[in-house]
C-alpha cells in the first residue's frame, strides 16, 4: 500500500510530515558498511573507534542521514527529492546490545518555492539530542 502523494497546492508552511523512528544496532552498521562501501573501521572496530578518540563505535553519519531522508522520500517519493543534506553535529553511539539506539526524525514544510518545489526542514534526534545540524531537503510535488 502506498500513501497518496502530497500535492503542492495542499501543503502550507508548517505542514508536518509523519514522524519516523528507526533503531540502529551494531549489525546494522556492518550491513550499511557493505551496502555503501564505507569501510571506515570506526564503525565496526572498538579498537579503531577508541584509537580515533571516540568513546566507542559510532554509526556512519550517512546511515543517520539516509534514515532521516526516508522521512522525505516516504512522503514525496524517491524521485521527488532534488536536494538534501546536513551536518553531522553529534556522533550516534551504538552500544553492543540488543536494544541499540533509536533515531527520531521529524520534518515540516518550511517554505514553498517556485516550480512546485517545497523545502522541508528536519529534526533528527537520538536520546533527545539533535545529531544532525540543519538537515534539509528540497522536493518537487505535483
Amino acid at each position, binding site marked *: 500500500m502506498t500513501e497518496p502523494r502530497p500535492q503542492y497546492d495542499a501543503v502550507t508552511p508548517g505542514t508536518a510530515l509523519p514522524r519516523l523512528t528507526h533503531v540502529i544496532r551494531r549489525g546494522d552498521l556492518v550491513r550499511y558498511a557493505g551496502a555503501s*562501501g564505507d569501510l571506515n573501521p570506526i564503525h565496526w572496530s572498538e579498537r579503531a573507534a577508541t584509537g580515533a578518540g571516540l568513546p566507542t563505535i559510532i554509526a556512519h553519519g550517512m546511515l543517520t542521514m539516509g534514515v532521516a531522508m526516508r522521512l522525505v522520500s516516504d512522503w514525496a517519493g524517491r524521485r521527488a527529492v532534488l536536494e538534501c543534506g546536513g551536518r553531522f553535529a553529534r556522533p550516534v553511539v551504538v552500544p553492543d546490545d540488543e536494544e541499540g539506539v533509536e533515531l527520531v526524525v521529524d520534518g515540516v514544510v518550511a517554505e514553498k518555492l517556485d516550480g512546485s518545489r517545497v523545502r522541508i526542514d528536519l529534526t533528527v534526534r537520538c536520546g533527545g539530542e539533535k545529531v544532525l545540524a540543519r538537515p534539509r531537503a528540497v522536493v518537487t510535488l505535483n
Partner: protein
Amino acid sequence: MPLNPAFAGRVYPATAPYLVGREKIREFAAAIGDTSCDTDDDPAAPPTFAIALTLRAEVEVVSDPELGLDLTRLLHREQRFEHRRPITDGDELTVTVTISEVGRVGGTDMVTLTSELHTVAGEHVCTTTSTLIAQGDD
C-alpha cells in the same frame, strides 16, 4: 601537521564507470531501512545513494600522503546532494572529484570536496559536496 594547501582547487580525472544495478539499489535501501522499492517497482535510488560512489572516490583522493590528512581520525562532517534527476537502475556513472577547500579550524583538519556524477554519455546527474575532517588529539 597542517594540510598541504596546494591541494585546494585540484580536479581529479573521472573514475572508471560504475554500473548501477537494481540489486545494489535494493541492498543500499534496505541498509537504511527503506523497503519502498520492494512494493512499488520504482528503480529510482534513495536520495543519498550517490554516496556509495562518491565517498570511495573522495577517500582515495584524501589518502594521498602528500595532503597530510590523518586517516585514522577521519570523520564525515557534512554532506549535501543536488540531483538533476534520480539515479536509476542501469545508469553508468563516473565521478569527478574536485578539492574545493583545504583548511584547519581549531585543531581540526578539514577538506571540502565536490563530486560530479555524469553518465558515460555525458549527462550530468548529481553533484555532491562533502566535508571530511580529522580531529587533533586535544
